[in-house]
């Protein structure tokens, strides 16, 4: 599809654009369903399962957007590392399926619905009024190009992220070793 062409009518399902759109919608649905499961599940392990589904949906979106490297890193880091670390925390802490103990917060009743409605109304209004323009393709999203960008244009952000991660690791070590004798 020509990126500068405005979409005036929905393409037919069995054209290339239609199938692309269908795949995109399926990915969106997977991501959203995963997110909803992660938020609403009563058992924490099921919430992790939902989070994994959500991350896989996001990875599929990256792949769809022609960045396979970012998609695979999303799988490797978020599914393979973050979710497993969360699962470890749950298994070691063993929260015993605590459900709804204590009074519900002030945002859990009608007030919550009003807040959610206002936020989504604001986002939808913003999305409807924005004039979307297609951005020119920067590069092919390959590993070399991303690496060169990281170490030239975005080297400051890259270094800052590594400093933040270093601080997090040192903090975790300090907390973990506090109770030990040696």
């Amino acid at each position, binding site marked *: 599809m020509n990126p500068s062409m405005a979409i005036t009518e929905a393409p037919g399902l069995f054209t290339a654009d239609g199938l692309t759109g269908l795949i995109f919608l399926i990915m969106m649905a997977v991501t959203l369903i995963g997110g909803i499961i992660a938020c609403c599940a009563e058992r924490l392990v099921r919430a992790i*399962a939902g989070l994994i589904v959500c991350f896989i949906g996001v990875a599929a979106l990256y792949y769809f957007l022609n960045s396979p490297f970012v998609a695979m890193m999303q799988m*490797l880091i978020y599914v*393979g590392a973050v979710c*497993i670390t969360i699962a470890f925390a749950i*298994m070691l802490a063993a929260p015993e399926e605590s459900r709804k103990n204590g009074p519900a917060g002030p945002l859990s009743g009608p007030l919550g619905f009003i807040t959610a409605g206002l936020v989504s109304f604001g986002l939808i209004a913003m999305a409807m009024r924005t004039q979307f323009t297609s951005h020119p393709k920067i590069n092919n999203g390959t*590993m070399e190009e991303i690496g060169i960008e990281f170490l030239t244009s975005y080297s400051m952000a890259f270094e800052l992220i590594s400093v933040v991660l270093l601080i997090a690791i040192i903090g975790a070590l300090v907390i973990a070793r506090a109770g030990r004798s040696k």
Partner: protein
Amino acid sequence: MSLTVLNVIAAVVIAIAFAAANAAYLVWAERRGAARIQRRPGPNINGPFGLLQPPIDGIKLMTKQLMIPGGADKILFMVAPVLAMAPAIMSFVTIPFSEGIVARNMDIGVLMIFAFASLGAMAILFAGWGSRNKYSVMASVRAVSQNVSYEIPMLITAITVIMVNGSMDLKAISLAQAGGFWHWNIFPSLQSPLMPVSFIIFFICSLAETNRAPFDLGEAESELVAGFHTEYGSMGFGLFFMGEYANIVIGASLTTLLFLGGWGCPFGLFPGVWWFLLKIYLLIATFIWIRWTFPRTTIYGLLNLSWKILIPISLFNLLLTAGLLKVF
């Protein structure tokens, strides 16, 4: 358009068939190998050399009732075996069997295999948690901690190889080692004198990643009944086994492609898929041989081996290779 769709369907069917056939006959090979090592006859009644045993076992597993224990988390219990098998099939998509035989060669092939392999730990975790059995939960915690610890040295060693070859494309890595065994990555070169050490680390890690003895703490039958698949019967159990053997094939293929020259011949003659298959089945035979000759380690010994020995050595190797690549 339709030809592309047909190609995709053919690739998926071949990947599933290859994984399933390997799983079936590697079980047979494993039982025969175990029997030979333990000096007893293995499955040798059905067909010549017992070769009809795997299809009969398959029929038995498929006709059994799938029992779900009371109090188990039904959804996670059902999802876990599928999650054990599906990533392995995805990984077959990007493994090149020879220069022409590859479903979809990606320029980030190594990364893709590691990304999908990381889903396997979640399958074990869900299986253990979903069965609501204390032995299963203990086994899954063990297996996941093992998988996480051994993924790190495995990735670092893979990065060393990627740095030497300058590519993440499995096909390119294999082609760079073409033309005789002295070009293979396993042998030390000026840029990476510690390559044999890398190979040993990678091999140990692939044993541990597939939960094979001596690292099968996740299914230590003397302590934990049958580990994370204690509660599984019929095809749920069958899928776990298929996933395990498919992962073994992937581990052997990755070792072959990264270190042993892929489909290249040791003497530069007739490179092709037959050399690749020969190499991976030799590696798998080594897997089986190791499983039935070494005793099981302890969980602390296992984790100490990874964190205190393999990770420092592989990091040192990475730094050394990076330095020498800059010099030469």
